[in-house]
């Protein structure tokens, strides 16, 4: 009977959870956790500095062009892919995952393209591929001629729901 009582005690203790050995290691683990937390912070700061340096070196503001993509509501169009052309040259072809599409529907904006352009007149064209109303395959394009000066240029591709027409609308706007 002694054996049985011992086993029952062990089992109930196991069910209850915490072991004293784990608590003893707590302080040491907390120190490592703190160090790791500090490292995470430093890693983010490093990533930021590298990102900014990369942008400054590769895309100086005098030639920089950024293209964002946003979706408003998205009832009439489910985005699958976007092809972006600047001056008839394909600069980006992007395929979207469900998670990315969801992030766009919820108000996120994607930086679709960043590049360099000389000052002067340019044309941007975007081709949107996805599923339109009633789940039919849908491909639409939109374009804009814009002028690039010595400041950085920001453009936005926007997918809107035209409730009246029950159709999606696509536009490029200068920011």
């Amino acid at each position: 009977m002694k054996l049985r009582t011992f086993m029952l005690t062990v089992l109930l203790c196991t069910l209850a959870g915490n072991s004293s050995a784990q608590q003893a290691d707590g302080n040491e683990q907390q120190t490592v956790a703190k160090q790791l937390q500090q490292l995470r912070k430093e890693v983010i700061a490093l990533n930021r500095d590298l990102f900014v340096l990369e942008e400054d070196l590769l895309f100086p503001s005098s030639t920089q062009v950024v293209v964002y993509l946003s979706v408003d509501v998205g009832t009439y169009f489910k985005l699958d892919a976007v092809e972006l052309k600047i001056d008839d040259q394909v600069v980006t072809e992007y395929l979207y995952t469900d998670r990315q599409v969801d992030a766009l529907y919820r108000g996120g904006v994607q930086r679709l393209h960043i590049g360099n352009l000389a000052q002067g007149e340019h044309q941007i064209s975007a081709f949107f591929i996805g599923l339109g109303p009633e789940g039919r395959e849908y491909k639409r394009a939109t374009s804009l001629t814009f002028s690039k000066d010595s400041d950085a240029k920001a453009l936005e591709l926007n997918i809107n729901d035209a409730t009246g027409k029950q159709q999606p609308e696509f536009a490029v706007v200068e920011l």
Partner: protein
Amino acid sequence: MRKGYLVLRHSLLSVGAWLMLSSPALSAQKCDTAIIDKAYQEVLYFYFQQDFYQALTQFEILQQACPDSLSNISQPGVDPNLLKGGISLAYGLDEQAADIFNRLLTKAATLETQTQSWYLLGKSLFDKQQYEVAANILNKISIDNADEYLHVKDKDQWLYMQSQLFNWQTTQSITAARDNSYWLGELSEDSVYRQYVIYNQGLHQLQSNQYSAGVQTLEQIGLSDKSFFDSFLGGWWSPLTVIDQTETDALRDRANLTIGYAHLKNQQALDALEAFNRVRLDSLDSDSALLGYGWAAAQREEYQIALSAWQRLQQQPRSNEYVMESYLASAYAFEQAFAPTQALENLQRGLKRFALEKQLLRANQQEINDQYFIQLAKSKDWSEQIPAHLSSIMLSSAFRNQMAWLEESLTHQKRFERWQQQLNTFSLMLDERQQEAQLRQQTLKNNDLLSKLQDYQLLRDKLQARLAAATDEPRILADQQELDWQSRLERAKQRHKDISEAWLSLNNKPLKPLYVARLKRLEGIMLWNASESYAKRRWQAQKLLNEVDELIAQTTQQQTQLMEQLNQTPEYPLQRQRIADLQQNLELQQQRNQSIQSQQLASLNELFVEQIQQQIAQLESYELQAKLAVVRLNDKAFRKAEADRQGAKQ
């Protein structure tokens, strides 16, 4: 002469413009609302994908470029500071998150922001097991505010934490304002936290020796059945439902297991059998339940049933305390069932198994080193690759936590290596640019445009000389029409002279002086007109000359600057300094990471060895018990044989 001035001025302006374009352009960071909003929406894009690392990086970029930008965001929705705090918390930057929440709470934030800040701050403290402070913070949220300002899932988690804190306060003899039943009543009907709250409440009651109440509470989970649709459709319509169901099933198994052992402890074997019977055979608790089932049967002296449960346990490929204990338990059952030979056989089998397990554990203790843990952490699903006899060690929460940290540290290491390469590439790129710039410099120096300034200076001096000469000869400043007239007059005079000479050569009388007088009169009129316009024209010419002087001075200055720049080697010192600083910082972080990784590996080794030794000690304890049981059985058999022999003698 005026035309000469204009040509010179135009040429100088072109040179000036060219020189201006050759200077580097300065970029200014714009922080207008549209750009800030766009940057914030980029943060949201990463946040909604749960990419907290990128989201935080984007936040940092935005705040570095525009320090007060978060208060200028015009996007509707949650306070951006609160969002940053929440993301920091999710990414494991608890201290940064706590700082943000405390800052938000000290300023005049809206009630919504305050409620959410209290919640997130309390959660952070709760996760760090600082229960007393967490309880104070979470108590600041009223149920009405939680209803209004917290998302249903967050509100349920808040209620769950409150109930957990109630259990903790009870153990610390702290009086809590509200008990578990209150928090339970507020939880949403389909919340998974409901089951956890009930389970913890039941366990807490059992630990406080409230056997009946504890069992009753746990039975709320243990006796709950799958819904008709769940059993009928098997959850095929939604993967999410399957995940929730898996969690619910695991909790139900755990509740039944706890009920079973509580009954067993209180000598309620039949009830215990029923409870153990409700645990699924493919659950995490099945081994423990099988062992308990056997003990419940043994308590009712149903040894055949007990033995079938334990022998099934012995056949399991796993190595845990339940499987090991089943050997001792089986021997006990055989002994109770008056089968000492089988009991002995079972103990011998157990001794062999214990020895084998010890041997495997010792071998692992020798073999397993830092590289093993590193390789394990690098593989995606490491928990599925661990050997059976190490499962109980390597699936412990302490071990998994350490492994998660090691995985993170290895991710950082990989990231640092990539960044190092990136910085090297940037450095090479600057070298390349430097070479290109030097080549361009050489081309510029050879450009004849720069030597044109001297020509223009000479031209200007000539114009100045002509202007000076105009004092004696005002016709120098004549306009184009006057010059045309002058030219016509000269031509007419020449023609008249030629005709007069030809006429005289033919021995004719000289021509009448009428035409000559007319030409002289015209010349006089033109001279008169030139003298009349002289002052005005001289003033205009001097003004233009002054402008040209100014342009020449400007151009000379710009040309000097350009020449200075051309004579300097383009070394990109600022960019190179930034790269060097980043490289230095990167090295520092690499060292820190290496130090953390070494500590983690040391800790993992220590933990591993400690747990292996514990398991070996446990196995040795089983071994000792088995050996003692063997001795006792042999002794019993010997005594029985003696008694039989004595009986036979008598």
